[in-house]
């Protein structure tokens, strides 16, 4: 395949590439598209809907807790709400929303035309949607999961939880692990194979480092959740005894398996978000990130150390002191790479000329919340303190500072930053400032008092509390703060919808940012790059002014690869072009396989074995059909 510059003129090249890459405007196109930008947007919208659903669940709970002895919700309804709130936010919002950003941004920021496995990418989205539908369909039969998002045995065993509630939980999460696992495989392969030539591993944006680290963590950690959920399902459905102490099982086995997965998962839902911040703060500080190498290494180190701290969730279970000491030390050590990142961000702002636009406000708010959540985390790594606050609102406060501070704030910043790329229109700055301050003040008003409620001894997950315990005022303040925060989120939605209609036209690079996604039009064409770029530095679009030693990137000239659906493959570390890769066409197989798996899992849920087996046979048939090479591919090789 010849890779020299195209002989055709630009408009006809555009027509030619459009014919090859554009998804048809038809039902087939809707269900069969493999365009990473469409899939990324679907991820973002779907995950945001789950954020709103989880928010409504929280709002109902705060209504109940606004004062003592309130009975808006029954205890059972309250149990289902706090469980689904946790499941929704942790599994259906926090990780998928970051997958959405990665899906949309990666091929653009890496200078490629799609992800490594476009069909797997579509499948990953459909499976995410399927697991969300599966978990939420539990509300239709009034049997939603109700034993908390970490679902400790033996409360979840059939003896103590006879309904379908926890079957929805176990099977719904297994469906989600399929989505997440194939997504991680896709991200890892993409970063190692589908970059712009010259984008060696030391030139990757930190956001890419974040999702890459996360993807490896998923491959090693997520099977632990799968195993735990399979065992839970087997115990409940087939009367096995994994967590049943009376027959040789052990409830703590669940806790080990869950947290071996669970703590790395915390980093799965914060590292890409921290990566977004590491790339965004330099743009608004008008200078490169200080300490790039240290921040990249800190990202990877956090991902690895995250595997050595799971027992700090279990300090109060009576495990041996030697074990708690080890995990306590490891949990304190993990603060070090986080601090490296914080100091790098502060130094970048300090050394730069900060521009106070809305994405920067959210980034600054993020740093404040990150430090607060980090401090309340590192003190609970000390075993005696942990014993004091275990299962109190102090822990609730800590985990919300971490998850809202290090996930939601960067996500909103990411929307303000990249939505103009996706829609071609800017969000409003004045509304953006209102949006930020409402969310920031509302959040702190709502969640800071939870620390105090916890220290006053209020246990988490109580559906109500009697008057006179000194908890009334802090709870009322928390409820008011939570609703102010909710108004802030609504302001964001208003801003998004207003921008669709009236937003200022963004142009290719409204922020004057340095990375490749800003080199193409907003929104980008279906094929991303008319000619595939070559990269000579970490900041391809800032080379003129930075005058760093090193090469120059070439954005406007390069191979067009317009003879078929093709992109460039590179060597894994130094990104030397070594292959032209033929990319798959749109396909309905991913959609139908997801539907068929959903049917299979409803069969497993209800014990309708005929349905489950028929679904399983269909799963196999569709997988074979998917993998069977097209006529085109067979001819290409023989």
């Amino acid at each position, binding site marked *: *395949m*010849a*890779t020299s510059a195209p002989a055709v003129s630009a408009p006809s090249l555009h027509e030619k590439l459009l014919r090859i890459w554009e998804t048809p405007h038809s039902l087939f196109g809707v269900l069969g598209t493999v365009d990473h930008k469409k899939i990324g947007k679907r991820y973002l919208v779907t995950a945001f809907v789950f954020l709103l659903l989880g928010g409504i669940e929280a709002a109902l709970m705060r209504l109940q807790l606004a004062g003592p002895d309130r009975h808006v919700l029954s205890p059972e309804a309250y149990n289902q709400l706090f469980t689904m709130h946790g499941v929704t936010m942790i599994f259906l919002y926090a990780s998928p929303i970051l997958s959405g950003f990665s899906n949309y941004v990666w091929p653009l920021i890496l200078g490629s035309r799609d992800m*490594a*496995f476009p069909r797997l990418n579509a499948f990953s989205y459909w499976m995410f949607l399927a697991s969300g539908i599966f978990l939420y369909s539990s509300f239709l039969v009034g049997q939603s999961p109700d034993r908390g998002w970490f679902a400790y045995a033996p409360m979840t065993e059939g003896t103590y939880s006879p309904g379908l509630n926890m079957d929805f939980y176990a099977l719904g999460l297994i469906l989600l692990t399929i989505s997440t*696992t194939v997504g*991680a*495989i896709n991200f*890892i*392969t993409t970063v190692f*194979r589908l970059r712009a*030539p*010259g984008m060696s591993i030391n030139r990757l944006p930190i956001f890419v480092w974040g999702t890459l680290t996360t993807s490896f963590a*998923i*491959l*090693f*950690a997520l*099977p632990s959740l799968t*195993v735990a959920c399979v*065992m839970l399902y*087997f115990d409940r459905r087939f*009367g*096995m*005894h*994994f967590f049943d102490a009376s*027959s*040789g*099982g*052990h409830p*703590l*086995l669940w806790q*080990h*398996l869950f947290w*071996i997965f669970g703590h790395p998962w915390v980093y799965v839902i914060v590292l890409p978000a921290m990566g977004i911040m590491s790339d965004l703060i330099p743009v608004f500080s008008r200078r490169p990130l200080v300490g790039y190498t240290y921040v990249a290494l800190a990202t990877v180190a956090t991902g690895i150390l995250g595997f050595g701290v799971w027992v700090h969730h279990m300090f109060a279970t009576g495990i041996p002191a030697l074990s708690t000491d080890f995990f306590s030390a490891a949990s304190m050590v993990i603060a070090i790479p986080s601090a490296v990142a914080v100091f790098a961000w502060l130094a970048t702002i300090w050394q730069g000329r900060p521009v106070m636009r809305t994405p920067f406000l959210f980034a600054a708010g993020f740093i404040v919340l990150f430090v607060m959540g980090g401090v309340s985390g590192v003190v609970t790594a000390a075993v005696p303190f942990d014993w004091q606050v275990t299962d109190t609102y102090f822990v609730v406060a800590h985990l919300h500072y971490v998850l809202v501070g290090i996930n939601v704030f960067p996500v909103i910043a990411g929307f303000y930053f990249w939505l103009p790329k996706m829609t071609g229109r800017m969000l409003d700055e004045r509304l953006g400032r209102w949006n930020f301050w409402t969310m920031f003040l509302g959040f702190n008003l709502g969640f800071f008092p939870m620390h105090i409620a916890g220290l006053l001894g209020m246990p988490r997950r109580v559906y109500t509390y009697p008057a006179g315990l000194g908890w009334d005022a802090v709870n009322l303040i928390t409820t008011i703060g939570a609703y102010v925060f909710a108004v802030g989120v609504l302001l964001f939605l208003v801003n998004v919808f207003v921008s669709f209609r009236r937003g200022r036209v963004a142009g290719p690079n409204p922020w004057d940012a340095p990375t490749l996604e800003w080199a193409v039009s907003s929104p980008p064409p279906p094929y991303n790059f008319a000619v595939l770029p*070559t*990269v*000579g530095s970490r900041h391809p679009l800032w080379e003129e002014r930075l005058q760093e030693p090193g*090469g*120059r990137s*070439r954005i406007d000239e390069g*191979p067009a690869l317009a003879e078929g659906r093709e992109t*460039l*493959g590179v*060597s894994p570390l*130094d990104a*030397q*072009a*070594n*292959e*032209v*890769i*033929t990319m798959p066409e749109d396909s309905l197989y991913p959609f139908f396989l997801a539907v068929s798996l959903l049917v299979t899992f409803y069969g497993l849920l209800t014990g309708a074995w005929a349905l489950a087996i028929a679904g399983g046979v269909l799963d*196999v048939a569709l997988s*074979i059909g998917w*993998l*069977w*090479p097209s006529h085109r591919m067979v001819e*290409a*090789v*023989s």
Partner: protein
Amino acid sequence: MTASAIPERLPVDAGGHGATGAWGMILVIVTEASLFAYLLFSYFYLGSMARGGWPPSGAPELRLALPNTFILLLSSVTMWWAEAGIRRGARGRLRVGMLATMALGIVFLAIQLVEYHGKQFTPRTDAYGSLFYTITGFHGAHVAVGLLMIAVVSVRAGLGHFTQRHHLAVTNVTWYWHFVDVVWLAVFTSLYLSPRFL
């Protein structure tokens, strides 16, 4: 260093060990290996917590499992032989090798079913029973999936899809099969051998 130049001519879908499809299979194996690691962790964890003897019914017999282990190892050899064949362009050797692998895999599963039939305990007897059947069952399911993959690749081989240069599907299936064998060695060592010397 300047921006790296792109060679004037590049191979299309070069295949080989660096191909995207090979990355996909390697990463599947990584995550599947982790899955079995957690299953075996559960086995040893519950074993270490057991109040009575472990396993409760004594170490499982080797009478069927040991020969079965050799059968599965032999199937890895035949699969290796088949893949090495297509690397030299020998299509007939590929098909014969894969047929032999499938036959050995089916024998392995059949013997495992016979062994299940003779067991004095079920998955519902106690936690050990749950572990034994779940772990060996998960492995058996992986053998079955591997067999299905080899069957599909055999049909494709019959249709002449593979050449000396282009046979990534064969290589991927071969790696998966070797992986399933290695997992069995870990399962066999943990469930059958470790009770004899731990």
